[in-house]
């Protein structure tokens, strides 16, 4: 697997320091259905990275491994110097948006939003975010009453507002129309930056990467 990295202009020393506090994926090897996947990347704290590549190349697998849902065969995943591979999924400093099943279907949207916080944000904060993403009138409904795009935006709000510093988004705008996609991407970029989140975004759309990411990494098949 090779990578193409476009670095933004950043002060070298500060960037090195941020890299140490950020995410280092070091010779990570994951075996999925008999296929070996290898990853090496570095991400400074507070940086936003977009990952692109053909279907099946291992983009989602990387996110799932970082979040603790796939086992790594070897390598290290350092966050602020600590190896995340030693921690179970629920103890990792990761907030992830899955491609699907981000909401408990049997709980209301607001109940879903409040999950995963030791001290949930106020309703007003949720409403503000929901307003920005055009889902403010959906908060008291059940997920089954929402469209796929609306569910995805609700999931996005919770993922971004949670306290974990490392945000993983797996094709977050796949079900959105062009206008809503633009709005959601901008909200994501602003929220992530204002809260100092480190963010990895998997997307097939170049414009998503341009709106949100500091740089883009393209995963490819080796050889």
């Amino acid at each position, binding site marked *: 697997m090779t990578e193409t990295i476009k670095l933004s202009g950043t002060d070298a020393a500060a960037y090195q320091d941020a890299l140490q506090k950020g995410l280092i994926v070091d010779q990570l090897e994951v075996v999925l259905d008999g296929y070996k996947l290898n990853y090496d990347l570095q991400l400074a704290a507070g940086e936003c990275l977009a990952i692109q590549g053909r279907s099946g190349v291992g983009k989602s697998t990387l996110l*799932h491994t970082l*979040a*603790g*849902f796939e086992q790594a065969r070897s390598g290290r995943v350092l966050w602020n110097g600590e190896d995340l591979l030693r921690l*179970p*999924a*629920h*103890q990792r400093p*990761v*907030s*992830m948006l*899955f491609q699907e*099943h*981000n909401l*408990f*279907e*049997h*709980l209301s949207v607001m109940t879903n939003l409040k*999950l*995963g916080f030791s001290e949930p944000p106020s309703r007003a904060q949720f409403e503000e975010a929901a307003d920005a993403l055009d889902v403010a009138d959906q908060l008291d409904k*059940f*997920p*089954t009453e929402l469209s796929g795009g609306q569910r995805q935006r609700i999931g996005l709000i919770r993922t971004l507002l*949670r306290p974990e510093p490392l945000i993983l988004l797996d094709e977050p705008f796949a079900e959105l129309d062009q206008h809503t996609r633009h709005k959601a991407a901008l909200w994501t970029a602003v929220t992530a930056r204002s809260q100092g989140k480190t963010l990895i975004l998997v997307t097939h759309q170049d414009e998503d990467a341009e709106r949100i990411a500091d740089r883009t990494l393209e995963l490819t098949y080796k050889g």
Partner: protein
Amino acid sequence: MSALTDSRWLKPAVLFAYSLILLITALAFYGLIGFDGASLQTGLLTDPYILQILSFSLEQAGLSALISVALALPIARALHFMPQLWAKRAFLSLCLLSFVMPTLVLITGLVSLLGRSGIITPLLPDNFNLYGLNGILIAHVYLNTPLAVRVLSQQMGHIPDTSWRLAQQLRLSRWQQFTHVEWPAIKPSLLMLLGFIFVLCFNSFAVVLALGGGPGSTTLEVAIYQALKYDFNLSEALTLAWLQFTLAGLIFALIARMGKLNWLSADTASQRWQPGLGRNSARFHLGLYYLSWLLLLLPLLALLPTVMRVDLAKLDLPDLVSAAGYSLLLGFAAALLAMLLSWLLLLPIRSASLQHQENRRILLQWLATHTLVAPAMVLSTGLYILLLPRIDLEQWGIFWLVLINSVLLLPFVIAQLKPRVLQFDQQYGRLSANLGLSPLEQFRVIWPFIRPVAKGSFALALLLALGDVAVFSIFGDNNTMTLPWLIYGYAGSYRMAEAALASLLLLTICALLVFFFERHQTRNPNRSADNHTDQPGS
């Protein structure tokens, strides 16, 4: 996912639950071994009398399983391919009632119907005898065919519409549709049903005790009871118990390997399209459906004329009411404890399943549900012998009665709860882990999802506990009767009218519980849960 048991108090609680159920079995066997130098007598295994009992146990269990499944298949097909059948839901409820009906109620009904002076006995051949293999098979088939009907019709409901549409597009014949669409869908359930019903009949106690006739129609379970009660030959009881435990255990292990048997889940699949039956086939299936109604209702209706003969002046109504109350009280306690234990026992099974540790899951599942194969009579008697010199059983008997009953209920409760919690884990396991939910939060999130199944499981456990005879026969108190024990007492003193009345009362309680069970199995807290009830892979 370790988050499931990752809390200060959950780990010890889970460990306690596993230790408790294993300790009960171990102590029961220890009780038998430790008393008066009882030991395994391997020589008994070649004794012609024991071989005869073993052979009969296997024969009746094998025949019961085969006949039950063979009868259930066409009935299940009728239910599936004729969705507009009259009173289909009521029929499925009756099936459930038949499966969980206390055995003594059925036996009273069968004796009223087919006994020596039964209602339809004059219509039967002169040499017909309810006692012996005939009666045992009739009772076992009556109890288990409805179970198989529910499982198979539910399984057929899982066949996607697209398969049927494709079969039509390809112009497959009815036989080809059966071999290419139906058979692959029901084959795993058929095999597991055969195994499951075999184990239930192999361990059958009350049916064989009441309808078995002499040494030629005795099973291992009854032989254990007789060795304990009449001969007080503990070595023989111990040897027979091990034999039964080993054989049933092997079959049960085979079932566990075969996968999941979601055998009582509500049939909520709404088939939007499936092929109909040909005219003759439809007539045959319709006839079979109405015949099944009749056969299932007959033993219950047969209670009524016998009840009419009750001499109300001599009837001890307070006894009847207090027995009903006591049965419900014991049943509630046993069902509650069984639910709590099941929840704890399921936690590591769910972890193993999430981590794809198949062998660990099977082992834990076997341990959690091993009481399906441990003879109830052995558990009760072994513990009784062990405890008698150490504990005041007059005072503490009720505690052990509840505890042993709840442990015996575990296989049924776990079989009910497991598919739903595993479905939750499959759908939301990663989300729960990613959100870092505490155990309390996890429970609050999963509860609305499993609530209908949990309530149904509780009702099922209560129903099964209400029918207990074996454990009560050992730990029960002669001054405070349960309803089944009262029926047994009435029948034993040839007071058939009183036995029928008590049976009718017990049946009514069971029918109300079945109503409750069905209501909660099919009613979900919101439509989203409905959407996922039949989509374990979604």
